């Protein structure tokens, strides 16, 4: 399955890559099977995600899903952001091959982990 134009665009021009210095919460999740790693930093205020930044180590779908996830959630309420599914994320980058679905799963897991951490803090 060839990667889509939107996938290539995220890889070439990642959105919201880097660190977020005024973040209220940073979460990092890894895929122990293949070593993929995603770090998500969020700035939340009034129940809304005001800013998001990501760092990623792993195969291209991990980078692309990190980039796409930040686009998806900035401006959303926490409740709405939690509704984003792995499938929606994968579809937003033009679909992922079966053996790369784990990248979308890692992104959603990292988002949930960040929100849990924020709520616990």
């Amino acid at each position, binding site marked *: 399955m060839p990667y889509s134009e939107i996938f290539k665009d995220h890889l070439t021009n990642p959105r919201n890559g*880097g660190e977020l*210095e*005024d973040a209220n919460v940073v979460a990092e999740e890894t895929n122990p*099977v293949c*070593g993929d790693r*995603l770090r998500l930093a969020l700035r939340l205020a009034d129940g809304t995600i005001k800013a998001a*930044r990501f760092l*990623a*180590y792993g*195969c291209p779908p991990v980078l692309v899903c990190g980039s796409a996830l930040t686009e998806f959630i900035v401006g959303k309420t926490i409740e709405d952001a939690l509704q984003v599914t792995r499938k929606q994320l994968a579809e937003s980058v033009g679909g992922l091959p079966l053996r790369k679905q784990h990248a979308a799963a890692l992104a959603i897991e990292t988002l949930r982990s960040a929100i849990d951490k924020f709520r616990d803090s």
Partner: protein
Amino acid sequence: MLPYLTEKFGNASSVHGFGQEARAAVDRARREVATLIGARPNEIVFVSGGTEANNLAIRGVGEAAAGHGRHIITSAIEHSSVRGICEVLEKRGWEVTRLPVYEDGIVKIQDVRAALRPDTILISVMLANNEIGTIQPIEEIAALARAEREKSGRRIWVHTDAVQAAGRIEINVEMLGCDLLSFSAHKLYAPKGAGALYVRRGVRLAPQSLGGHQERERRAGTEGVPGIVAFGEAAKLARQEMSQRAQHEERLRNIFEKGVTERIDDIVFNGEPARRLSHVSNISFRFIEGEGLLISLDLQGIAVSTGSACSSGTLEPSPVIIALGRNDELARGAIRFSFGKDNTQADVDYVLEVLPHVVEKLRQLSPLKKVRRLDPVAVE
């Protein structure tokens, strides 16, 4: 090759005129392919490629010599076609010793000597590695096996996977002393789908495909005449042009490596530089994963390869780079750049222009490194 796809369509096993025309072409190709490695034509078995040659050599000798012993010595950096067949034999009762390589990526003769057992029947070590290009001491290994054979009267055969080396360095099976040698047509610029196994006269091999007399009963099945004809022609050209191709590729490779060293920090070159094929350069880029680099370069028209991770359908980093003692991060960040006869200085200049930017961009996204921010954060 093209006439053998159209008007010269005979089956080389047929006795009619068309068949004999094809037979003559296969015989000519066999002579050229044999000449490339200093073998006799009747020691060449045509197969479908390197994987089949490696499978046939190891399982063929393993099964034919099973009555004498069931121990095989191989290395930790073999191609997956050698690794795979050794694993299959292991499950069926053979024992396999995998020799280490060290940071230089080269098997040590004393390790081979120490691994020899009374039931060793086969040593299979590649002539040059496909990921890092390191050239293995096959001549010494074969001499050791020969000495052991003469001393004890036991059968110990030496096989070498020369898929990556053939056409790149001079190979003479008499000087090397190996008993079996695999090589492949497409590495010589012929179409994919043809390969050969050299089998020294007197070496018994249990055929793995049965039901025909082709290839002196060692590989039944109708010969792929067009591919074999092209293999013959490619072998002739490789022999004639070998030194100029190697010089050209080495020059490009050296310019590339110097340029990369000047432009990119935090890199590690893999494989002993002084003892490797002239067209291969393997580099680990710290903080990033090879497949991200591979795809990013591909989008810019540059084709490279990784031996690692998801890209090859497995989740493990390259076993070759791990065998050098590199950590997981360096193994996952390893990329093989290879240079061919048709590459130019302009190609190398282009890679040197693109590569540093791509590496830097991926590093900026890497959580493994303290990174600087890409641009001001947009906040509503």
